[in-house]
């Protein structure tokens, strides 16, 4: 029942493989926690596109939570 996704059409393609990126389930490791996230990735070599809204948006929110209080 996920209501949020980072998956969106993108013109990015993998520089090495020249493959268009596809939605892929990946494990993101961050501050000793692992999260399951769906991101756009190269189907051949697995390189992942981290969108800006994840890098500077959601990660900040998660970081604030993961900090020890």
């Amino acid at each position, binding site marked *: 029942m996920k*209501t*949020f996704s980072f998956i969106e059409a993108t013109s990015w393609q993998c520089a090495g493989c020249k493959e268009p990126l596809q939605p892929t389930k990946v494990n993101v490791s*961050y501050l000793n*926690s692992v999260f399951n996230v769906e991101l756009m990735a190269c189907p051949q070599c697995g390189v992942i596109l981290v969108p800006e809204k994840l890098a500077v948006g959601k990660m900040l*929110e998660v970081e604030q*939570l*993961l900090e020890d*209080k």
Partner: protein
Amino acid sequence: MVTGGPLRPGGVALTAEIMDICRPGRGSAVLDVGCGPGHTLALLASKYKLRPTGLDPSASMLARAATRAPGARLLQGRATAIPCGQLSFEMVIAECVLSLTGDIEMSLGEMYTVLRPGGVLVVTDIYKKRSEISADLPDINSCISHARPLTDIEKGVAAAGFKEYRLFDRSELLRQLAGQIIFDYGSLEKFWQLFMAEEAARRTCCAVTAAPLGYYVLIAEKGAPYG
């Protein structure tokens, strides 16, 4: 679901981890207090070959549990008045429910009563890291709004009659769940809005972010008589 089944820190992976520590004998009678839709009941029956009984006040949860864990015995009732005889179980497990029962001392006493001598109690729940802080939370029956400090839990366990227990701090699982919710729902606020009104969701979200909450696993053993 965000935890691969039940919505609680650690999910069924934590349940399996605890079972691997406790190693209840095959066929042991186990009571799951607040069994909800039956994820733990199914795990106990299929992986560990135990004889699970599920207790929950909600008829709709019990109906879901009956589908998920068809071999389990299911009872409608509350932790403060467990509808089972004394000395009925080798293990009692209460995952993320003790703080919701309304009276943790009475609930722990009931759990002690239904355990056989040598039986094991497993409690996992949210706790408040600093007792002096009271979070600004809406009046909802959530484990967050009723979280108690660990000293209260330990006192309750001792008062119930348990003499020995092990306590594990697993707060990282609470943070992991909160982080995963952000990835799955966009924000904690949007997640809480699935269950409550907008203003209540905002207050809950702020409180969860600001309040020092943790998560514990407690494993206690009911000593043998005269032992």
